[in-house]
């Protein structure tokens, strides 16, 4: 049976468990450094700097104990982008200028994206969570981490429904989905039951969070901090006592 599980094994930017100096760096620092590299690659017009950054990228992958295969997976989009950009330049400019300018722009786009891929390759989800926890509001962080925590459950539910519907003859394998005629099957046999299940899980999680005081605690805080009528304040005081 053709399973979508094979897609989970590898994809561009997937975290690799290694012990390298880059892996050990702080996630926040890596994000800021990647952003710095991206910005410098985008704004520079100095060709030696662009060439230096092009050399630096595979070196950083090597220092991070990542193989050439990982570097290829993260940077191969360049070979789709560059011909397209050069072609568009050729429509407007002379071939020599179009080739050099198009190639330089394609390289700059590559250099803008690869640092972020390297951060993703060398930073575990837990380290990334720690970095986000510092910048996100509490409630947004709660929702983000709850969603993250339930991804394995949602994945399991998705695969269970997927396999059950395949056994019933639904045309929802990746091969079938290449034909738009089968998208209706995909929607009604897979997504609809999945959405019903997600809504049920949402309700269960919300109730569970309410029982743990996530909801009531904030309601209590709101009641305590918002100005009310004297009657309401008296009622609140009685309630608290």
């Amino acid at each position, binding site marked *: 049976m053709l399973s979508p599980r094979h897609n989970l094994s590898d994809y561009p930017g997937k975290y690799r468990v290694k012990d390298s100096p880059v892996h050990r760096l702080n996630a926040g620092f890596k994000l800021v450094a990647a952003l710095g590299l991206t910005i410098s690659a985008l704004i520079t017009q100095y060709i030696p700097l662009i060439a230096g950054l092009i050399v630096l990228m595979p070196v950083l992958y090597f220092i991070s104990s990542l193989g050439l295969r990982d570097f290829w997976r993260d940077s191969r989009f360049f070979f789709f982008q560059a011909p397209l950009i050069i072609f568009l330049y050729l429509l407007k400019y002379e071939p020599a200028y179009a080739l050099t300018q198009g190639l330089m722009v394609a390289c700059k786009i590559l250099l803008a994206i690869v640092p972020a891929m390297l951060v993703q390759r060398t930073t575990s989800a837990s380290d990334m969570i720690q970095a986000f926890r510092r910048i996100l509001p509490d409630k*947004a962080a709660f929702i983000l981490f709850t969603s993250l925590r339930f991804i394995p459950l949602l994945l399991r539910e998705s695969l269970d429904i997927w396999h059950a519907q395949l056994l019933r003859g639904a045309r929802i394998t990746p091969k079938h989905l290449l034909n738009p005629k089968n998208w209706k099957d995909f929607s009604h046999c897979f997504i609809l039951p999945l959405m019903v299940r997600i809504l049920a899980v949402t309700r269960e999680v*919300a109730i569970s969070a309410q029982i743990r005081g996530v909801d009531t605690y904030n309601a209590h805080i709101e009641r305590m901090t918002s100005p009310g009528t004297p009657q309401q304040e008296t009622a609140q005081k009685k309630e608290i006592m």
Partner: protein
Amino acid sequence: MKNDKQHHWWAGFTLQEAIFIGFSASMIVLSRILFRLHLGISGHSMFMTVFFLLLGKGCVPKRWSASVIGIFAGLLGMILGLGKGGPLDLLKLILPGIGIDLMSLVVADVTGSYLLCLIAGLIATISRMPGILVLDLLAGMDTTVAVQHSALQTLGGMLFGSAGALLAYPLIKRLRSFQILDH
């Protein structure tokens, strides 16, 4: 989801709605992992993105719900190491959400008919264009070439995005008709 009796927990959403928004974002991320079709056509990921953005918007028809789904999907994508470009990838998910939400300021129910869903899908996909355009212009691309490049990149997305939008409408209609969203 009708939760009028409950108070707003965060950003105008009840706790249940906020959790559902998070799960919708998770589904966008999961679908990006599970349905890598290797078509070699730019923008095919917009199929699932628009599909789940509209489903989320249909289930939580509140202001900025699609944008919040986009933000969470972008952050989850960064945490799980998905997508090409880390922080740049955030824009690719936030902008379509903002597009749908801006449409909802004009039309009350953006998921009310096939036509509205189609328009929402197209707006969502076109909303990505400024993000691609800004990146190209920052990289020093000629303005005409940058507009052509971003238009080409968006064109494939428009095709897949509108297909995802058209597929979302019957599902939302069914969920509403079975009163699944009323609890």
